[in-house]
């Protein structure tokens, strides 16, 4: 057989790793590990996208068709039948912009929560920072978000609306939504590995949460004495911000952003804490 040529090994001193009991690990090391292994997250996200569309007949068009069909149905039901007012914005544009954001967020929550169970075969055989796994859906779902965003812009042009240049701020909103979903995923993914009920119940609660979020109706449709409640809903703030940017809807108040920031920070911290506490046990149990 042919002897494969070998490079001389890099100086081993470069990468000393000390393996020790889990309790001695520091958060900062774990986060640094995530950063140095970010290639893996990208690879996993790309694989996710490849797999999702590989076997479907219409491939990537499915990413467009789904929100478009939903928009059509919602427009029929909530605009034509229920006549929900949308502050002068054409209902399809209104609901599509909300759906985009909601679908991104809910996809991240559901998929991040299932990420440990789904990748069981890998995590018991190969080492890489497990914190990466719930992060993958934030990337793969962003691709679908961007595809659908193109459709939204096309729809707006068809209605004679021009997107505001503030659209460049969208990545920031996506980042906040991704972090929110990631935080929830960090809490739920180890729980899901222990109690499979979590994975069963989650889609139901996500469905309900959509109706508590101004996706299909504007906050102004809600009786004034309850409107303050929406400031507590971080996804409502994100959706309203998205509409403010794209279709010049009113901006949420400063309080809403303070609450959003609190949610992002709180959930990420809670998530990191839960995940780091439960994850080692899960690798041994799975």
């Amino acid at each position, binding site marked *: 057989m042919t002897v494969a040529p*070998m*490079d001389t090994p890099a100086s081993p*001193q470069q*990468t000393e790793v000390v*393996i020790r009991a889990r309790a001695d690990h520091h958060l900062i090391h774990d986060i640094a590990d995530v950063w140095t292994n970010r290639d*893996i997250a990208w*690879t996993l996200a790309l694989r996710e996208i490849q797999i999702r569309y590989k076997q479907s007949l219409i491939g990537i068009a499915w990413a467009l068709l789904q929100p478009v069909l939903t928009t059509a149905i919602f427009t029929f039901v909530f605009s034509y039948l229920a006549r929900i007012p949308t502050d002068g914005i054409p209902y399809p544009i209104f609901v599509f912009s909300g759906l985009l954001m909601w679908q991104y967020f809910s996809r991240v929550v559901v998929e991040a929560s299932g990420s440990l169970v789904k990748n069981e075969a890998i995590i018991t055989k190969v080492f890489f920072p497990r914190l990466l796994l719930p992060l993958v859906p934030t990337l793969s779902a962003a691709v679908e978000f961007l595809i659908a965003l193109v459709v939204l812009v096309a729809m707006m042009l068809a209605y004679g609306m021009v997107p505001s240049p503030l659209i460049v701020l969208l990545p920031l909103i996506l980042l906040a939504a991704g972090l929110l979903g990631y935080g929830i995923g960090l809490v739920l993914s180890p729980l899901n590995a222990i109690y*499979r009920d979590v994975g069963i119940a989650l889609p139901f609660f996500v469905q309900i949460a959509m109706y508590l979020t101004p996706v299909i109706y504007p906050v102004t449709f809600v009786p004034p004495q309850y409107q303050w409640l929406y400031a507590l809903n971080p996804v409502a703030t994100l959706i309203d911000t998205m509409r403010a940017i794209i279709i010049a809807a009113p901006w949420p108040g400063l309080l809403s952003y303070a609450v959003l920031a609190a949610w992002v920070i709180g959930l990420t911290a809670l998530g990191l804490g839960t995940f780091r506490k439960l994850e*080692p046990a899960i690798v041994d*149990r799975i």
Partner: protein
Amino acid sequence: MSAIITVDNLGKQYALSGTGAPAYATLRESLADAARRLFSRAPATEQKEAARSFWALRNVSFDVAEGEVVGIVGRNGAGKSTLLKVLSRITAPSEGTARIRGRVGSLLEVGTGFHPELSGRENIYFNGAILGLRKHEIRARFDEIVEFSGVGDFLDIPIKRYSSGMKMRLAFSVAAHLEPEIMVVDEVLAVGDADFQKKCLGKMKDVANSGRTVLFVSHNMNAVMQLCSRVLWLERGSIREDTRAVHEVCGRYLLGSGGALKGAYITAEDSPLDSEYFSLRSFRVVDAEGSTLDQPTPNDRPATVEIEVDIHRLSPLLNFGFAVIDEQGQQVFWSVTTDRAEHEWPSLSLGRNKLYAQIPPHLLNEGKYRVDFFASLHGQGWFSEPGSTSAHVQLQIAGGLSPSPYWRSRRPGSAAPVLTWHAGSTRESD
């Protein structure tokens, strides 16, 4: 000091759920359990039992120098795989530390992370990334990986259509081309055809020869002997032996233990072996005087295999025999009571029978052997098959090879017959 791996007092504790509960539970079960515990005080001991744990690895310390090839051997459950999992950071230790100076490439299960829907090409990139390679590094090695795996023609079809052999070749190929400073390999040689095993061994030798460090778990002592310069023998989670006398330790590992040889298998003391047709009483290797051989015996003296059975039912199909197996696990020969012409068979009678056959002098080479008892109804099935679970004894041949002044030490081969040489011209016409 050039230790590339320093393991210090490493331990790994696993929780045992006493009831053999599944790895995951439902929330309902957990809640019900909690409620039950709340309302009954009795099963405190049961809880303790459930919380029982065991140490898969304990007090393990060793250093590995750069470029060493270390074989890790031990029975199932000795902690080999746990050790590799800790060293490749898949699971965290419960105590102690391990310092690793270099990138670890681990191949703990072949085909890890392959996705059935993706093509071979896509899986190479994914697998490489998961094992720690950057995209450009994979690209640089891609052709080499494909060539070594020999699946070049199938690169663009989904992995799910690959045979398991192809999958494995591809996985090994990716891992072997990682070029990590430390390569950790668990039992890949247990699967795959002989050709591929040879290729894997060759590749691991290359890796070792290029100065990289290899940790290699295997039950295949031949491979360990060929590849390793050092052996760690794990037993019940601890290091039983850490030695560079690879051949010697592999031999002892195969024989089961050090010390005196086990020359007799007595069913009253070992485990019984009964059937409708017979009960085995003892199985022994004895010398010319009839006493059990528990010491090495020279090759110029006969060793006799002796079987004592109580026969309950007679059948012309009933036969007994033994198999001689060498240190590498190769069967050297079998011998059966019905090997000769029918009228020369030993006649069996109901009740106690003593059957014996002599292993002639100058047949086996020097070395340790296992002699396995077996019995069958000819053409109908085994009562006891030759193999690791059957009744067996040990036999060691040492010295007595030949009176020749030129033949003093062990020659290669399993047999060491002393043939007679003649001089003559009978075949001159050739």
